[in-house]
């Protein structure tokens, strides 16, 4: 109050500054609010569409639903692979829930021991965000409903119904069809057909072998999608059914296989190891392709335990190996048909005889015939019938390896066939050129090697399918037909194997070799007893083979016991009916010791089923006996009470006069 003037001036100055600056501050505030407003206008009016799209993609999620996998059926439509419902238990990683505690809770409902819980915990924690992990498959209805009732308390747990692959015939088709299994890291390629988000679906299974692998994309179909509203944690809030995208089911695949023949083949192999391939020799359709011993493909779908896998992988008879396609074996004497044809093509007169004294000397070595005392003088037909080694030794030396190789190649040796599944091994067809290329240390063909070549031994190897193709090509006359395994995909028929050019061999020569094969199953032939079909006049022709696995001196045992892995392979190739060949068959019994003892009896059983299933042949088998010409007999006419016929009229009688039927076989 001492200096009021200054005081007031002072006050006024302070007030004036304040008022000016308060207005300024108001201006700044207004500017700031206007800035916010214009930013809002930009976001909400100009960019609305962009953000609406983003909001929608937040809000809605398409959850993939795997398509039902295509079924695989046999040639008659019998199911070989299908799908069945499966109650699954899935757990997803969720920040709000303790996965470990969840698993412990679940252990009250389903069997989950501590070790499995530990493994699942690791799996769940390493799974991608929002990708559920399967905790249990194939729950019972009780387990499924018990968990579903409590699912509200455990949003990170889902119990749902999926589909699981089922193979109703267990092991019979395991090698051809293969199996499906969980996707593993190698299946997920960054690009290519497998760069598909469905791969991460816990219910998805990918084809791992055979048809399931080769036709995986067709069988897979196109996954559908479930449109769901999700919250920020990915939990499903609402299901918008109108927005669902339907799955396109996988295509149905029809194979040429026949369920009955295939099952019978597995059955007759029992515990033996080997393969059997049966083909229609007019169309090339493979009716049976069976590898024994087999395994239950359903176990692979579920996932093998380590012990199960080791048991399969370490078993000496190799159940996991496909012996029809992936195993190659020396064809042994079944190859003599090829040597014989090569000889005929080289101009050797089949009537010329070679004297078999039980062996022959060549190049300072003694080459034994399988018959100790020798067969005596043999022409070509005799040699095939008796499987005389000496005859083919001498013929092979005369014609050399390249002629044999040429014939073998024409008949399918040394190649793979386009039957739609992977895993075929080519085998080896040796020739002078082959040794030059593949044996750099010893590039020259030794004449002694021709001898073993002539009887299907030595470096020569083939798989069971090749032997079946060889037989089919020999049997059908002249066609170089190709095997077919997949009949149709999604109703679309695949080309038959019959549309092929003829073999470049003379019909006469082929007929001659065929006649030799007919002699094999005649009385006196190597497979006479084991090849009788018991189907009336329908006969089977064939060729036995006993392939040496190991030099006898080193412990191999021809036709005898001994360590299993050193025993000879037994082979048999056959076709039937003899007079109008329809089915060709190759059977390999690994270490089965003899073609006529191990392979031929099994071949007979398989062939019988095929013949009996063929309606035309069945009609022929069941055909009533032809009525004898009625000749009125005055003496009988006078005794009207006597029966007219001596025998019931439904006894089967083979048709007479089949050209190749040897005497003593038909009705006497």
């Amino acid at each position, binding site marked *: 109050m001492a200096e009021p003037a200054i005081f007031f001036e002072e*006050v006024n100055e302070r007030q004036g500054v304040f008022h000016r600056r308060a207005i300024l501050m108001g201006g700044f505030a207004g500017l700031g609010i206007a800035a916010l407003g214009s930013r809002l206008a930009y*976001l909400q009016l100009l960019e609305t569409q*962009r*953000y*609406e799209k983003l909001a929608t993609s*937040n809000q809605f999620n398409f959850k993939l639903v795997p398509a039902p996998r295509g079924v695989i059926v046999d040639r008659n439509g019998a199911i070989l692979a299908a799908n069945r419902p499966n109650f699954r238990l899935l757990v997803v990683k969720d920040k709000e829930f303790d996965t470990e505690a969840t698993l412990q809770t679940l252990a009250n409902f389903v069997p989950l021991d501590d070790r499995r819980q530990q493994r699942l915990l690791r799996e769940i924690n390493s799974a991608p965000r929002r990708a559920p992990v399967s905790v249990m498959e194939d729950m019972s209805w009780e387990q499924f409903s018990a968990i579903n009732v409590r699912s509200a308390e455990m949003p990170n747990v889902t119990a749902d119904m999926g589909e699981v692959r089922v193979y109703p015939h267990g092991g019979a088709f395991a090698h051809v069809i293969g199996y499906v299994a969980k996707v593993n890291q190698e299946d997920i390629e960054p690009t290519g057909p497998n760069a598909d988000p469905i791969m991460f679906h816990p219910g998805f299974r990918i084809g791992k072998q055979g048809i399931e692998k080769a036709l995986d994309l067709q069988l897979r179909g196109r996954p559908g999608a479930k449109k769901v509203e*999700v919250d920020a944690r990915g939990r499903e809030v609402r299901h918008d059914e109108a927005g669902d995208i339907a799955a396109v089911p996988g295509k149905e695949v029809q194979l040429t296989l026949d369920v009955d023949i295939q099952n019978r083949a597995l059955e007759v192999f029992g515990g033996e190891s080997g393969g059997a391939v049966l083909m229609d020799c007019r169309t090339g359709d493979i009716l049976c392709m069976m590898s024994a011993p087999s395994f239950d493909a359903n176990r692979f779908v579920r996932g093998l335990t380590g012990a199960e896998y080791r048991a399969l992988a370490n078993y000496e008879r190799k159940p996991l190996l496909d012996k029809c396609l992936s195993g190659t074996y020396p064809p042994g004497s079944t190859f003599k048909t090829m040597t014989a044809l090569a000889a005929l093509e080289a101009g050797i007169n089949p009537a010329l005889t070679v004297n078999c004294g039980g062996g022959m000397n060549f190049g300072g070595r003694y080459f034994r015939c399988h018959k100790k005392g020798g067969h005596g003088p043999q022409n070509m037909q005799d040699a095939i019938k008796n499987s005389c080694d000496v005859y083919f030794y001498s013929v092979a030396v005369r014609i050399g390896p390249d002629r044999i190789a040429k014939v073998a190649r024409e008949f399918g040796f040394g190649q793979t066939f386009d039957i739609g599944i992977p895993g075929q091994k080519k085998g080896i067809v040796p020739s002078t050129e082959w040794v030059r290329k593949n044996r750099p240390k010893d590039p020259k063909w030794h004449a002694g090697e021709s001898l073993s070549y002539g009887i299907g031994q030595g470096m020569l190897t083939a798989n069971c399918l090749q032997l079946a193709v060889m037989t089919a090509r020999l049997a059908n006359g002249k066609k170089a037909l190709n095997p077919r395994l997949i009949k149709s995909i999604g109703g679309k028929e695949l080309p038959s194997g019959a549309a092929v050019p003829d073999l470049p061999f003379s019909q006469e020569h082929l007929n001659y070799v065929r006649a030799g094969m007919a002699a094999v199953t005649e009385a006196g032939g190597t497979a006479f007893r084991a090849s009788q079909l018991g189907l009336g006049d329908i006969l089977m022709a064939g060729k036995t083979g006993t392939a040496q696995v190991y030099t006898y001196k080193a412990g191999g045992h021809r036709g005898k016991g001994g360590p299993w892995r050193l025993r000879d392979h037994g082979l048999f190739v056959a076709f039937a009916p003899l007079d109008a060949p329809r089915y060709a068959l190759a059977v390999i019994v690994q270490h089965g010791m003899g073609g006529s003892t191990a392979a031929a009896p099994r071949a007979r059983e398989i062939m019988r089923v095929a013949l009996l299933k063929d309606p035309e042949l069945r009609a022929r088998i069941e055909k009533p006996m032809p009525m004898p010409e009625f000749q009125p007999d005055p003496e009988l006419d006078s005794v009207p009470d006597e029966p007219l016929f001596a025998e019931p009229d439904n006894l089967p009688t083979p048709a007479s006069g089949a050209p190749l039927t040897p005497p003593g076989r038909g009705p006497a």
Partner: protein
Amino acid sequence: MIRFTLCVALMIGLALIDIRVWFAVAYPVYVIGLLLLVAVELVGDTRLGAQRWLSIGSFSFQPSEVMKLGIVLALARYYHGASAKRARLSWWLLVPAGMIALPVLLVAHQPDLGTAMLILMTGAAIVVLAGLSWKIIAAGIAAFVAIVPPFVMFVMHDYQRQRVLTFLDPESDPSGSGYHILQSMIALGSGGLLGKGYGLGSQSQLNFLPEKQTDFIFATLAEEFGFVGCVSLLVLYAAAIFMALRTAYLSHSHFGRLATAGVTATFTLYLLINGAMVMGLAPVVGVPMPLLSYGGTVMLTVMIGFGLVQSARVHRYAEVTKGSGLL
């Protein structure tokens, strides 16, 4: 709602208190605030990695909120007794500078950078309104601009730096650190002109929007009520600011003026910082939207602030002298 009713009642109650009472308690409130900040430093609760909370029995609060009011009162009280010359350019300016620096440093150390900045800027606003020389203002702004980049790079905590860097490029990590800003902008943008309707915002209802009831409540509103709703809200805020400033303008006492303007500045800063953050114009800082965000302490602070403003309005003709007062 109960909280809000209580706060409104408190505001009206505070409005009836004589401005001279406010004047008298100004320094004590500031000192208590400082002591509480020191206490929080020593015995405070650590939540989410920051020591900000002080518990008394079952009641816990953030002392930094007290300081928001304390700084306004204390600075207004100081400048009430200071001459224009002192306020413009003199060594006396070190007193208000110290009054601002002390709480700012304490709060920043918790660390609560958002609140520290708010206190700093509120204090700066009062200093400027009280008549700081333009030279110092210019120098201050220049110093601030110069200090920010090194501060961001070397002094800030990692999570703070991350927030700033994310703000500069929110789409670099949409599911990680950029998530908040991106989701907020999606909520805003997808609201469009008229919004999706009350309770129908997919971003907020399905929890894509983080902190949908607290720091990001404006985005929730924007999504459901659209541009029209947002602009209406901004207009209301602007009206509140205008009326508060008018109160300051009409106030006869320098204390009343500065205190009211200080509260207004705090309020405006809340609004602008939160708005800018929600719209992707500022880094994510824990500054709520005044009056909208759910949260007790902030609402209390704002209501007390408005109580002060209304008290200044009611008692705008009161003479406030150093000696006068009811206490």
